[in-house]
């Protein structure tokens, strides 16, 4: 009765849902918000009021094309087009926000602040998810994913360098804290790298020992599990007394900066949290190596060291890397909280912003932390996928 030709088929529900979400957000919520100064909450301003006509038209056009794509029969070309269109849309949304901010603040008092609004976040997230959806449908490998992410990041960075975002409140917060920001970022990375590095140095041998002796496993994991259940703020607090006592008793330790607050307790807490995933994944990874393979290796005259280095370690490596990934992402998040005990890092801005009720200052700390976590996750995931493919099975 209905001919196949005349019928409209929805081929990509994900894309359609994202488009609907974006449309509703643009219609109902502010794209940016306008506040007379940084401490007052802002008034929402819609996309079409805030951004230039060409930007609005461009966003509408790209959105419409993506909606149309949801109705077209799937194919490689279509998915490539979807990825490209969504990536351009994402960059255009970013540019539109910057352009809206500079238009709204033109001629206004210097205290006026233009922040990013709900519609911006939803639109940007929808565009990003549309890129991810296209890559998934393409079955893109790790290299393709890396290149796509790199291209979008490069586009955003180019806009930032060109000053496209300078009028946005978050950029103004950054501008007034440029030196502090660089410091905080490098401190944050150092906290994460230091604690993850130490956790690996301590946790890897413990994991090997746990894999070798099942009797060690239950007490070891009991302790490590208990550590994981302590709330991070509580652990940071709990470490103040023992570490300051230690520093008071041993002046040499105090001289190299170890004390109840600062970097030392932060590193200790981050290492304690990182131990469980490192130890567990090391033990699980090694235990997962087929015992027949080890038996064959022994029977052919490999020494235990050769079996460990040439057989067990490479076969367990994907699981070890998965543990490293969990730990790194977790440490990036937890290190934000470490600012509470004076360890520095991106958390400094978050807590300062919370204290001043300045959301953009919170974002100045939170966004780079999220970005770091995503980047670390992505890189380690890619590495682990490449290794897994190489090791096969």
């Amino acid at each position, binding site marked *: 009765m209905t001919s196949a030709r005349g019928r409209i088929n929805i081929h990509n529900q994900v894309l359609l849902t994202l488009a609907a979400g974006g449309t509703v957000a643009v219609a109902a919520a502010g794209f940016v918000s306008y506040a007379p100064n940084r401490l007052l909450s802002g008034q929402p301003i819609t996309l079409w009021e805030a951004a230039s006509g060409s930007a609005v038209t461009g966003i509408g056009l790209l959105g419409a094309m993506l909606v149309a794509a949801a109705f077209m029969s799937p194919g490689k070309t279509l998915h490539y087009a979807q990825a490209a269109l969504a990536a351009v849309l994402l960059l255009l949304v970013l540019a539109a926000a910057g352009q809206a901010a500079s238009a709204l603040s033109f001629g206004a008092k210097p205290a006026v602040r233009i922040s990013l609004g709900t519609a911006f976040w939803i639109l940007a997230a929808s565009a990003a998810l549309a890129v991810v959806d296209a890559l998934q449908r393409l079955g893109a490998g790790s290299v393709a994913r890396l290149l796509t992410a790199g291209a979008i990041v490069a586009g955003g960075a180019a806009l930032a360098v060109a000053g496209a975002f300078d009028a946005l409140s978050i950029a103004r917060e950054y501008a007034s804290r440029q030196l502090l920001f660089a410091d905080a970022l490098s401190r944050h990375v150092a906290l994460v790298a230091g604690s993850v590095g130490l956790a690996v140095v301590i946790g890897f041998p413990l994991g090997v020992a746990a894999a070798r002796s099942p009797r060690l496993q239950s007490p070891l994991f009991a302790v490590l599990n208990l550590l994981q259940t302590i709330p991070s703020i509580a652990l940071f607090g709990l470490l103040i007394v023992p570490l300051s006592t230690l520093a008071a008793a041993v002046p040499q330790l105090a001289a190299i900066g170890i004390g109840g607050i600062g970097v030392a307790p932060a590193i200790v807490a981050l290492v304690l949290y990182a131990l469980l995933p490192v130890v567990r994944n090391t033990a699980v990874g090694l235990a997962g190596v*087929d015992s*027949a393979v080890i038996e064959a290796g022994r*029977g052919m005259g490999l020494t235990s060291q050769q079996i460990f280095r040439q057989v067990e370690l490479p076969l367990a490596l994907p699981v070890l890397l998965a543990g490293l990934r969990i730990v790194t992402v977790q440490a990036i998040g937890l290190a934000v909280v470490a600012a509470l005990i004076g360890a520095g890092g991106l958390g400094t801005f978050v807590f300062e912003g919370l204290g001043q009720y300045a959301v953009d200052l919170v974002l100045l700390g939170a966004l780079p932390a999220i970005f770091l976590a995503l980047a670390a996750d992505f890189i380690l995931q890619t590495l682990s996928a490449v290794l897994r493919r190489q090791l096969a099975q």
Partner: protein
Amino acid sequence: MIEIDEVTKSYGGRPVVDRLSLSVGGGAFCVLLGSSGCGKSTTLRMINRLIPIDSGVIRVGGEDVTQIPAQVLRRRIGYAIQSIGLFPHWTVEDNIATVPRLLNWRQARVRDRVTELLELFRLDPAIYRSKFPHQLSGGEQQRVGVARALAADPELLLMDEPFAAVDPITRDALQAELARIHRATGKTIVFVTHDIEEALRLATVIAIMDSGRIGQLGTPLEILEQPANDFVREFVGRQGLGLKLLSVRKVSDRLRGGEPAEGEPISLDASLSEALSAMTARRADRLPVCDDEGRHLGIIALADLVR
């Protein structure tokens, strides 16, 4: 080649191998046959010291194995197991080259040896050299496993139920290949199995094991015709005994020289069960017999099978 002298191994006070003595001559294909838990695998694994010996002496090539460093000993003895244990992250070439590389062979020599072994197992080197274990069938994996055991050209090969986990058709092919390779290389092989048919097919000498001791040691024919005790008689099984006897006797034992016969000839080396099978299939009571070069030698007659 191997002398096992009064060797004992106990776990928790219970002897698994009990004052066992066995001597295997060079070039023999010795099958340790028995049900599970009889100590056959333990005996095998004491030869290359994967399991330490409690008391007694094992000598390989006249040398007490405990006087040779374990790794050195194992690199001199080929070892293949039921679960194969190929290194999943290494190619077929790397797997086969394991022991030669441990022995620091030159690269070119290793490569030539891998080619030679792949050809011996009828795996095209151009195709199989760079494959990974998961790309191989079960039978191919076990061929590579045995090739790896042979890689450094050991005088002695230990095999622990290597074909127990493959399907019957593949097992049949692998057994035929191993028999061919044994004839071609003259290696001494100690082979553990619980499968009497497999033992009868491959062995030059069978040691039937029971509770850590040897119940009987003899050629397949001796084991079938003169079982030493009730255990051996039970294990060999009265059912189908006649067919088993036919399977270990050769056409050459019953050849009638000079007489002519029609049809496809059967080889002098074929077993009498193969001859019976051919006669039944062709509805014939006699078959012509030829040697390896295809020369007519005589006939084998149905009446002679039951003589």
